[in-house]
């Protein structure tokens, strides 16, 4: 199938999926036996029927559930995600504010995870059964199983407070004014603003959280890389390549690794989707104003419009990431192109 037809088909499939997810999110959010009134109004106000009525009217909670859902869908089709009960701003504005922070962190984290994970995976596959294999596998296991918040607090306490090697909580130092928002990504915005100092500061604030999330992600990536590499290294064509007298580096990187990539790309894609939908614990400890914390607060305050908006966003992220992964398959494996 030609690439463009394939893209169109994938896009069309995504639409019912996303609408389905809004319905499921709506049903679950409403099934929780907790009322947005009690989550958002102070005790005394809840005893005043006028204040409660004004609250319900303002947020459309006085309408029936099917009516609320249909109104919501209608608004979404017009590009209106509604207003968050908690922040009182349009949900789309909230997402626009919080998503870049998460995107920036997810990107640096996945790069860290990729470098660490693929590196460890190849090393332990090449030296299978040797000491270095056991060491990297143990490190990978620790990476997956070590609680993220412990790693984060240790990192902050040692690398930031004690040694001053990495910056502390937040996206920038407290006293530094953020760059004018163009993309919301401080790395890019600071470059646009021509401020090397802000760029350096933003990068230094990314070090610790990216390391924490990167180490966590690398555990999974390295395990997949290792097993995938081992499979390929035992294949006939690798033996052929070696017998042709090719250098070990060419054999491993070109012949083995590029053929071992498919499962690795899949797991990287899923990890990236996971990071993009917000790492609540890491964002909380690093005071990272990202989508994970926004989602967490929306759910604790029964903020329906925000919950729905985030559910849709996460659905879109996963659909998007899977889509990119599929396109990558297209280039990595000629057999898919032919199918």
């Amino acid at each position, binding site marked *: 199938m030609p690439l463009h037809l394939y893209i169109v088909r994938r896009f069309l499939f995504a639409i019912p999926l996303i609408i389905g997810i809004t319905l499921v999110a709506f049903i679950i959010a409403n099934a*929780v*036996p*907790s*009322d947005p009134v*009690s*989550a*958002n*109004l*102070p*005790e*005394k*106000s*809840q*005893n*005043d029927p*006028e*204040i409660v009525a*004004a609250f319900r009217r*303002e947020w459309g909670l006085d309408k029936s559930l099917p009516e609320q859902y249909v109104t919501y869908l209608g608004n979404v089709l017009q590009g209106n995600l509604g207003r968050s009960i*908690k*922040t009182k*701003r349009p949900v789309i504005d*909230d997402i626009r*504010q*919080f998503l870049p922070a998460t995107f920036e962190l997810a990107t640096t984290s996945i790069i860290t995870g990729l*470098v660490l994970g693929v*590196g460890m995976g190849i090393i332990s596959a*090449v030296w299978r059964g040797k000491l270095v294999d056991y060491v990297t596998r143990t490190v990978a296991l620790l990476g997956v199983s070590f609680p993220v918040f412990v790693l984060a*607090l240790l990192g*902050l*306490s040692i690398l930031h*407070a004690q040694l*001053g*090697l*990495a*910056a*502390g*909580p*937040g996206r920038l*130092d*407290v*006293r*530094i004014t953020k760059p004018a928002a163009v993309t919301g990504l401080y790395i890019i915005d600071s470059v646009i603003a021509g401020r*090397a*100092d802000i760029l*350096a*500061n933003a*990068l*230094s604030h990314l*070090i610790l959280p990216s390391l924490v999330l990167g180490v966590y992600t690398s555990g999974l990536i390295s395990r997949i890389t290792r097993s995938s590499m081992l499979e390929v290294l035992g294949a006939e064509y690798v033996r052929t390549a070696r017998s042709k007298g090719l250098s*070990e*580096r060419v054999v491993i*990187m070109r012949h083995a690794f590029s053929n071992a990539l498919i499962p690795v790309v899949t797991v990287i894609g899923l990890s990236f989707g996971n990071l993009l939908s917000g790492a609540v614990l890491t964002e909380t*400890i*690093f*005071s990272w*104003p990202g989508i994970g*914390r*926004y989602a967490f607060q929306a759910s604790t305050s*029964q903020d329906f419009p925000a919950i729905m908006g985030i559910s849709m966003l996460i659905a879109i992220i996963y659909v998007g990431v899977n889509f990119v992964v599929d396109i990558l398959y297209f280039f990595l494996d000629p057999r898919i192109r032919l199918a």
Partner: protein
Amino acid sequence: MSVFSRPRRALTLVLVLLTTLALSLAAVRAQDEKVLVIGAAEFLDSMDPARSYSPTGIITLNATYDTLVTFPPDTADSFVPRLAASWEASEDGLTYTFTLREGVLFSDGSPLTASDVVFSFNRFKNIKGNPSFLAATVESVEAPDDATVVITLNASDPAILAKLAAWPFSVVNPEVVTANGGTDAADADTTDTADAWFSTASAGSGPYILESYEKESQVVLVRNTNYWGTAPYFDRVILQNIPESAAQKVALEAGDIDIALDITPDQIEAIDAIDGLSVYTTGSFTLHYLAMNRNAEFGGPLADPKVEAAVRAAIDYEGFRQLAGPGAVTPAAMLPVGMFGAYGTDKAPVRDLDAAKALLAEAGYPDGFETTLEYPTYTQEGLNIETLAQKLKSDLAEAGITVNLVPGDIGTFIEKVRAGESGFFLVWWQPDYLDPDNYLYFLPGRNGGTRAGWLEADAEASLLELRDKALTETNPEERVKLFAEVQDYWIANGPYAPYLQGSIQVGHNDNIVGVFRHPQWLIDVAGLSRVE
């Protein structure tokens, strides 16, 4: 191995980059202006004084707006002038006349007059926002001249000054607010659209103005050059959002922040041990209590007043104080220590297991009974409610009462409590305004009473009479007497067991001086300074 020569080069590059970053980081120096950085978990619903009901809002609004009256810098048991130079109440307690201070300007330089107060109060009442219940007794607000504000009440309200001292009665600049969608009209609840604007700027007369607010990141306040009072020490105050108390400690240690507002009792020792840092501790007005439902359908054995008394006698109050850390006290009754008219710690109950067992036997439960205790999974002022519930379970077990713990999500929990269907529950109460009137809520016929199945129909006539007198009496001396009577009643009777009054810990750099905690304002940033 040549395979890895390229990654090695990349690694060297990363290391060089990191070193450069660390160096450039060190090169970033604070500017000359005096800056105070406070680390706090952000809890903010709105920056509009008429709509806000959250800690971050209270701190910010106190710094950017003025109320007619306020409290002394470190207590909440009397009133001092703010925008009002003086005030007097009519004989019947229904009319309050305030004379405004002269020469007060809004931050934009325009004069603040009585009609601005009228606009602000009417807007607040009509918006029907989160805190609007505080205006329930306000019938009308008038400005006979530029310097006089007359507030007429629809019923006698002994707590009116305490309410007027709270942030929702902040005076806003009508010109600026109207230009940004605000209105004081009767239908303001549907027509006022200024809420979002309030997050971008302020329109008050306080010592600071709101320079910027970025959700989940920081609130930045800068000095108001038109401020009528003593100029604050700091040019700029930053409220930095750090949700996690452990991260606040790290930030304090690293010097990123000067003050950490959400320190927990178990962090005190570690912070005090760090050179240059201290922890300020004080009691809070948070009253932790147990409620036992008088409706036998839900309360079971706990509906019996003798069992209520047995539960009160079985609690290890001292153990709870230790659990909560320095600053925590045991209240005598359902009125926290330090509130106007409240008993001190000398009247606090002490544990008496023998009395508890005797009371249980008298009630017909010589071998005790089994019950369930409901509580929300929550952390309040650094105290895990789960821990408190577990301690109560073990305390009551010693008296023979077997308690099964039933934790729940706070929203679900509150709904069941509100419906009066929880038989035995553990919760806490924070005052909405700093007047003992707030606690009469825990009497029959009032919401707190109803939730514990304590209904007017079952209550003694004398208690109801006392309740109504306490609700309306405005003479301070008479009020003290009436509240003493109410507390005496609670000590011996009623479906509550108040067992702990929480504490507050504020971590700070030793070079910061001032009052670190105010019961109303949480922290008054204008009152802080740095010793060089």
